[in-house]
């Protein structure tokens, strides 16, 4: 490789200076790197560079970066909370080393995508010594996302251990997953994953039911490969599907429990059973599970609640729960006279769905947003809510906002009832809502349907602003 010419060295120094200046300014590294790169582009146009010269420049840059990182040493790798000069150190992501390298790669990355892809991958190999280089695209994407949030407001780092939100694109041309991954996943599962990701199928019960229906299709289309047993291979066959679904949207506890049940049933299949027989058996157990643990459970809960709902009751419900809807409709059909207050919250506004169904059946309803809960609570006689899961220490994991409704209800001495099927019970214990939660799309907070427009349209350009969209909350015992 030819040594870099003096003119190239000048340009390289200029570029380094531009990069350093870019990193010095918080959050403006991109622009400065871009301007530095743009300047060089202009210079490059004047004197056409050969391939060898370009490679030499790249090598020099890589060496310079290594030197810089070696000088910083373990500093970027450790989890630091202080922001001391340089955009690189600003990344407070827990996976510091890789994140640091990626962030430094970022100002260089933007103007020269073709070149820098090599340098960034090489630096991640060289600097990232104490962490095995994860080659799976998903974890790399997760790290990038963590760096994204890390560059934003510090408090959002409270949630950097959770899977960051990434919406599956509607067109398969975007490289969200490699094409090969797409082709190996059953189309029913892809459809399901996209439904989850776009919020078409929402709610613990519906997600579980849809997932089991999709798995039935998968089982029916499955053919045991030669020299393999169904009960061993089917498990491995399903695993990538479950990973795919988790990437689309983290699994709910109901789905997790259903999958555990399915795997248990698969392992129970005798080695001498024919394939068609085994498949039929599996589909039958899935149907049985659905019938017993979801449908019949709902019926039983509804029966129990019939005695609880009395005439002239005012019942408050929060957002949407299929169980609670069932309870209310059955009570209405059996002739009880009561009225319902539906409390709704942003951004999902699921309460409207509940409201529509109730109004269609003729139930008297009121509708408020969660902020007005203290205003209407004086009229309420009971609060009935659904749950996403019941934890082993008795805490309830449910839609965000439930705990607030429960808190206000308690201050007005209104009883709060939680309806939850047993298949949603979980072995986990949790004491706060941050250690395990789901992050929704922060862009959902921007759209506010005001005539005068949204306040937060350009929120990504403001470095000090962050948006947080939590999905679940833990409701504790008082």
């Amino acid at each position, binding site marked *: 490789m030819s040594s870099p010419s003096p003119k190239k060295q000048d340009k390289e120094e200029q570029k380094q200076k531009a990069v350093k200046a870019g990193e010095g300014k918080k959050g403006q590294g991109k622009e400065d790197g871009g301007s530095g790169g743009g300047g060089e582009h202009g210079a490059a146009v004047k004197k056409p560079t050969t391939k060898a010269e370009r490679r030499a420049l790249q090598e020099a840059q890589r060496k310079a970066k290594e030197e810089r990182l070696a000088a910083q040493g373990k500093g970027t790798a450790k989890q630091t909370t202080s922001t001391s000069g340089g955009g690189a150190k600003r990344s407070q992501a827990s996976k510091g080393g890789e994140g640091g390298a990626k962030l430094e790669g970022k100002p260089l990355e933007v103007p020269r995508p073709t070149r820098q892809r090599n340098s960034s991958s090489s630096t991640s190999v060289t600097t990232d010594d104490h962490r095995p280089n994860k080659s799976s695209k998903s974890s790399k994407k997760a790290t990038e996302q963590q760096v994204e949030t890390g560059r934003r407001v510090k408090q959002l780092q409270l949630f950097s251990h959770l899977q960051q939100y990434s919406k599956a694109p509607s067109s398969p041309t975007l490289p969200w997953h490699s094409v090969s991954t797409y082709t190996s996943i059953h189309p029913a599962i892809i459809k399901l994953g996209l439904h989850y990701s776009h919020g078409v199928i929402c709610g613990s019960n519906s997600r579980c039911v849809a997932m089991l229906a999709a798995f039935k299709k998968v089982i029916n289309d499955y053919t045991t490969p030669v020299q393999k047993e169904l009960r061993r291979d089917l498990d491995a066959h399903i695993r990538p599907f479950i990973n795919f679904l988790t990437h689309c949207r983290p699994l709910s506890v109901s789905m997790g429990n259903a999958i555990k049940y399915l795997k248990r049933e698969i392992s129970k299949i005798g080695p001498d059973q024919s394939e068609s027989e085994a498949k039929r058996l599996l589909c039958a157990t899935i149907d049985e599970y659905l019938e017993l643990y979801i449908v019949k459970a709902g019926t039983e809960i509804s029966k129990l609640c019939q005695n609880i709902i009395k005439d002239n009751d005012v019942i408050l419900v929060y957002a949407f729960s299929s169980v609670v809807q069932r309870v209310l409709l059955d009570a209405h059909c059996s002739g009880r006279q009561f009225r319902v207050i539906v409390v709704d919250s942003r951004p999902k506004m699921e309460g409207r769905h509940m409201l529509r169904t109730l109004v269609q059946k003729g139930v008297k309803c*009121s509708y408020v947003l969660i*902020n007005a809960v203290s205003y209407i609570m004086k009229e309420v006689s009971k609060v009935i809510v659904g749950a996403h899961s019941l934890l082993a220490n008795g805490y309830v994991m449910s839609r965000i906002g439930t705990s607030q409704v429960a808190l206000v209800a308690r201050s007005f001495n209104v009883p709060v009832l939680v309806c939850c099927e047993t298949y949603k019970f979980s072995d986990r214990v949790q004491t706060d*809502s941050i250690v395990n*939660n789901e992050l929704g799309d922060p862009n959902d907070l921007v759209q506010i349907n005001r005539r005068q427009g949204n306040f937060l349209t350009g929120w990504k350009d403001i470095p*000090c602003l962050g948006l947080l969209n939590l999905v679940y909350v833990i409701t504790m015992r008082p």
Partner: protein
Amino acid sequence: MRTIRNRLCTAGMASGMAVAEKGRSDLGKEVEEKLHEFITYLKQKNPHSSYDVAKRTVLLLREVCSKTRWYSARDLITNIRAAGKKLIAAQPSESAVGNMVRRVLKIVREEHASCVAGSVDEVDVRALLQGRDDSDDLSRQTPHLKGSVIEIINDLLGELELSASNISSQAPDHIHSSEVLMTTGYSKTVEAFLKAAARKRKIEVIVAESAPFYRGQELAKNLAVAGVETIVVTDSAVFAIMSRVNKVIIGTHTVMADGSLKAINGSYALCLAAKRHSVPVLVCAALFKLSPQYPCSYDHDTFNKIVSPHDILRFSEGQLVSKVHVQNPVFDHVPPDLITLFVSNIGGNAPSYVYRLISELYHPDDQEL
């Protein structure tokens, strides 16, 4: 020596009309015009900034003092009461109007007392001990009353203008480094407070967006543009995130006489969550928001203002809207036991001290205008 006019004044509502009419004729054309202009402004449905309303009220009352004809403190009080009644009737939910009217009335009484007897304290104690009737004193002619009243009203205006900066200058006393603060809604006082704190301390602010008016989003944007690290969360996430918050700082529309708040929708749930997690709640409110009225019943219907449900359920969903009762209250009542501290322009006070502030700022005779 009681005059007929005095007896009429102390009689009650029946004579009120006669007195008011006398008051109206004394207000003069110029002042009447300004009064009508202000009443039109108050009647508009746009939410008014309490500070603007308070300032305009005081300016108007200064006009009443300087440009109307009055011969004694009793006359002046009548004039101010007449103007004040009209203003309050125009927009009853705007308590700043009534507060400022009562402040000015107290100023007039105090100045009259000091003009007559030299020192205010002396007169009060003597009057209390001897059970002397005040109404006698008020009809006495005092030559320098006009000048001193106008001077004190100017002081009041100055206090109003400086109230936000006085409150924000106390910010570093309450906020330590690396704190996470939480707020909701949009209060200009709180915005100034947080910006002042951010200048001296490293803080992070979490703002609840406060649907359906989304004032919280506006505040968050302003803070972020000014360089304060801000996160916007939905109102439903308040309890979830409260365990990581160090202090809650809210503004309020009014501070009632028992120390409770008439604050923006959602404040009650926020303060409850704060109490549950043992997070102190600081209320930044200037003294002009302090009202001598008690919340008459915890039945919010008389206390609250309900506005159009369009923000909650659009009229375009006609099927639904016609069958459903939608409520959109503006205010929330927060009881005094959920509040840790009131930060006002004269310093920090506990909610239990509010009664004392009221006795200093307002006169009990002015309770009923």
